[in-house]
């Protein structure tokens, strides 16, 4: 069955969500992944947004976390303080899986969504942290969506907006952060994970038809490809959920 790489990205990320997870969701493809998981492998997962809406019905796909579509039939509509406290508080926070994206990521999963070049007079300015730094600081695991391009996988990020494993194993704990960190990086070519001992990124799955070498060619730093296997292509039922249930208007996909 034909599918686009973007559809595969959403499905690969959705498969990471476990039934019963509380899913912190951003905009765009992360919303598609979270919504898809609810209709596939994780029907009892709970989607929530930094704006304060919890367990929204999501009859239509929201285009921003403040879209009124996140409010409809939610369990509660609070505010930012509620949403971030849900993650900082260990009772609920330990159940949360985050979904984030960034302009740059390094081999320890540290992310930049602030600027490229000099911080004071940047070559390119992006939106800034929003809630990304908070999520990355608080939750035990999170998925990061990236486009696989050399400049987006640099040896060192220009500005460290959101913490991954910082300097490697034990880096978060030394800085005073909660343990945890990124569990997967989902790109348009592959899924990467982080080594349990070193906390360095490695290639876990390459997409059908994509060679591990092509993935390395699209990164500034090198990663271990020895453990890599081919990712399972989307099933017909996964694609049906994406196309007919989650985003029938094709707003995001």
């Amino acid at each position, binding site marked *: 069955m034909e599918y686009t790489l973007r559809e595969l990205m959403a499905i690969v990320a959705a498969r990471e969500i476990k039934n019963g997870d509380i899913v912190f969701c951003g905009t765009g493809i992360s919303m598609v992944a979270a919504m898809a998981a609810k209709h596939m492998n994780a029907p009892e997962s709970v989607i929530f947004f930094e704006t*304060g809406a919890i367990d929204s019905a999501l009859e239509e796909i929201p*285009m921003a976390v403040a879209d009124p579509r996140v*409010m409809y039939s939610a369990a509660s509509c609070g*505010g*930012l303080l509620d949403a971030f406290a849900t993650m900082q508080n260990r009772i609920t926070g330990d159940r949360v899986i985050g979904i984030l994206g960034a302009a740059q990521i390094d081999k320890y999963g540290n992310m930049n969504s602030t600027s490229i070049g000099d911080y004071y007079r940047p070559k390119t*300015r992006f939106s800034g942290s929003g809630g990304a*730094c908070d999520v990355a*600081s608080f939750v035990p695991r999170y998925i990061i969506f990236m486009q696989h391009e050399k400049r987006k996988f640099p040896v060192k990020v220009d500005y460290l907006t959101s913490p991954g494993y910082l300097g490697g194993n034990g880096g978060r704990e030394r800085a*005073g952060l909660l343990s945890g960190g990124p569990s997967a990086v989902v790109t348009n070519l592959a899924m990467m994970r982080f080594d349990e001992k070193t906390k360095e990124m490695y290639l876990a799955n390459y997409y059908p038809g994509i060679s591990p070498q092509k993935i390395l060619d699209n990164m500034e730093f090198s990663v271990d490809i020895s453990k890599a296997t081919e990712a399972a292509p989307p099933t017909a039922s996964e694609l049906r959920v994406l196309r007919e249930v989650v985003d029938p208007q094709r707003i995001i996909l």
Partner: protein
Amino acid sequence: MDVRADKVMSLAEAIKTYVKEGSHISIGGFTINRNPMAAVYEIIRQGIKNLHVYAHSNGTGVDELVGGGCVAKIEIAYGGNGRAAPTCIRFKQAIQKGTVVHEDYSNYQMSLRFHAGAMGVPFLPTRSSLGTDIVNKWGFSRQMRKDDSKLPDDKLIVMDNPFGDWANCAKVVLVPAINPDVTILHVQKADRQGTCRIQGLQFCDVDQAKAARNVIVTCEEIVDGAELRKDPEYNQIPFIHVSAVVHVPYGAYPSSCHHYYDYDPTQLSDFAKAAKDDGAFKAYLDKFVYGVRDHQGLLDLVGAERLAKIKADPRTGYATGLDRK
């Protein structure tokens, strides 16, 4: 604190009275939702400059204020505006050109800063941002902070947990309180004295109001105070915090106002297109801001047909089935 019974005035008068050159301000709403846009346009129209803006993720309004040349300094978590502009375009240009001095925080940190201001404490702690450049890189220099009595000496402070291991936490980041000179909100309902009822997500509006010396409320409807007081548990802001009440239907347009209207994808993307080019942006401002007397003038330009398309469906609170491509 203002207990007058009737605070209703025109928008032009409210802005002129409470927003001054160099004022420290914050606006309510979040990205494409319930930004006090009529008030933002009025600030631009009145040519008020040199503002110091505190923003978590107030996309549409902040970008227009920056584009309108009103902002000198900004403390911000996120300058993005949904699909039309993943990074707010005038904000992006202003930072790249160095025309606005900026300081970056996270959304939770900005929320806590407003909350601290509302509580009357100098700071609040969080476990967010340890080990990041939000801690390490300061947009406002030490000297600039020293020279300005309205700024704390530090962007933030990392501290060992003074309670030892309590709550299994070694370090915290302390973020300083914000007390804006004025906060401007757009709400669904208010009475003439300023008691407000917000429907749907509140974002940080309530803390932003309670932290501010003056609060301007624009609203879809002015309702009878007795009506609001029948269910006081649904009122988030009591009148004591509010200085001015202004009746502005569609006052959040082109951002959305839950149960009244959706965001207007056409206007947001037209704004984003214009914002990319200085000439086109000037033409945009000339037409929609300087070229009209007030918000009704802008709505007249947009036209009844477009407004009908974004009218909220009573079942969902938004325009069900709206073409948002």
